[in-house]
């Protein structure tokens, strides 16, 4: 649905996006992660035909960026970084204006549908400026959906929202995912990306990695098993290091942190070895690295 081939954006001497190549599949939620100033918003603006591409080429829903811009704007929905609502106008008028500009056939019906879906129907006649941040964000999401776009670009949809509002927005994105829409999600919220995204790309002017969150954890840190023992000593760790599939063993307090390639297959023998060496195993679990750990590691190394 979204294809980019070495797209580059340069503002004078500043290189904002460097040779970005990626493919986002239909129905996928793609997380685009990166620090402030990494070029995420610039990328969204290029892909939604708001700004031009300096070098490279891109296609969105089969339409070529730079040549079929109006078709792209008809096809995609964009939630910009800031809601950008007309604060003096009512929620309903805000949506009606955009429904008309998006060439929606049943303006009244679509406006009503999304106002109700996002819980804003009762406040439809109130000026958008009187809304809370969460309500404004919901209204902006409704605006992006009025024309039933196949592809949605969401730029920091939960930024500056309180936990409750963030939760509601995330739930709504999950609903959109179920509907089979393709979602390009720019976010700082790594927990959000972990929960919602099928794949994520970590980006800092250039694409650092692109994979599923699980694969990223594995490729960055390997898989780690934590074994809690009644007592721990260096000989138990040494015994494990003799096993060919054990990549690393660390002693942390009364625990052994063991890096394995395939814990599901290798755990039984590894535990047997420990028990045979006299260890009293209290508890065993997997040490899960958050996507945040992965992200910080990648950005630090970039």
């Amino acid at each position: 649905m979204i294809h980019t081939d070495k797209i580059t954006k340069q503002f004078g001497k500043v290189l904002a996006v460097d040779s970005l190549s990626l493919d986002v599949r239909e129905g996928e939620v793609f997380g685009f992660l990166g620090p402030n100033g990494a070029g995420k918003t610039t990328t969204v603006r290029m892909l939604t035909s708001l700004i031009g591409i300096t070098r490279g080429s891109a296609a969105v829903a089969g339409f070529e960026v730079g040549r079929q811009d109006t078709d792209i704007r008809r096809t995609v929905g964009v939630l910009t970084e800031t809601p950008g609502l007309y604060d003096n106008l009512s929620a309903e008028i805000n949506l009606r204006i955009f429904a008309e500009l998006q060439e929606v056939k049943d303006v009244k019906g679509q406006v009503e549908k999304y106002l109700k879906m996002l819980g804003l129907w009762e406040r439809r006649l109130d000026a958008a400026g009187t809304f809370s941040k969460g309500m404004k964000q919901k209204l902006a999401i409704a605006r992006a959906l009025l024309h039933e776009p196949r592809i949605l670009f969401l730029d920091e949809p939960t930024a500056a929202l309180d936990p409750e509002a963030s939760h509601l927005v995330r739930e709504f994105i999950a609903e959109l995912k179920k509907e089979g829409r393709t979602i390009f999600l720019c976010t700082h919220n790594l927990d959000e990306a972990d929960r919602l995204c099928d794949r994520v790309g970590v980006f800092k002017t250039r694409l650092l990695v692109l994979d599923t969150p699980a694969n990223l954890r594995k490729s960055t840190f390997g898989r780690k098993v934590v074994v809690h023992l009644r007592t721990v000593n260096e000989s138990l760790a040494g015994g494990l290091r003799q096993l060919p599939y054990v990549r690393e063993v660390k002693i942390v307090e009364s625990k052994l942190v063991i890096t394995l390639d395939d814990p599901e297959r290798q755990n039984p023998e590894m535990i047997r070895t420990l028990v045979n060496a006299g260890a009293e195993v209290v508890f065993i679990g997997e040490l899960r690295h958050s996507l945040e750990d992965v992200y910080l590691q990648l950005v630090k190394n970039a």
Partner: protein
Amino acid sequence: MDKIRTIIRKEWLEVFQNKLVIFTVIFLPLMMAAIPLGILYGMKETIPASAQAVSSEALPKEMAALCPSTLSTGDCMKVFIVNEFMILFMIIPVAIPGAIAGYSVVGEKTTRSLEPLLATPITTFELLTGKCLAAVIPAVLATFGAFGIFAVGAALILANPALLSVILDFRWLLAVFAVGPLLAFLAVTFALMVSSRVNDPRVAEQISMVIIVPVMAGFFGQISGLFILNKEIILVTAVVMLVLDVVMFYLATKVFQRESILTRWR
């Protein structure tokens, strides 16, 4: 066309919530109509209509040229003095759009509503045409309204159809119904150009008002006797305005660079 209509409606819904804009659209035209009417009323007493017909000996050449020979010298004086205020009806279409169009693009920049708007399939032509018309239409209607008040008022004050037909002759109609809208369009395109380049609505409004300077210069030029707004000057002005309007609208669409507007926000 539908999108242009939507933009006009949106602009009006927003802009007419601003009391200052409403005040400008209503009060300024009323004031501009009241000034010449007051002068006409005053002259009714101070310059009595003499029986003496217009002659180039009794009046300066420029003054006499404005009046047919059937008019008395006193009435011709009235025609000449009221003629001085014709330019007031050209100030209205220049002054009103500044308040509306100055806010147009830069206002959207400051509220960050321009990016979602540009993400829709609207073309630059549709967007700018909508914004232009949203500012031009109220200005032109206000000008016509002011002229209507002036015409009715003049008819009541003068009670002299022959004099009235001279005061409200082709020059006035041309000035109000042709030059007025053309000036309004020029003012709006200029305001849009300014609005596309600055980041503060107040700065946009103030710079946009620069366009009123040549009109004011015309007003003072006429008062000081440098020239008289006759049919020829008004016709030439209309043609020049038409050319300028086309050039300025073209430039406005060129200046309105989606990319630089979005990326140079501060």
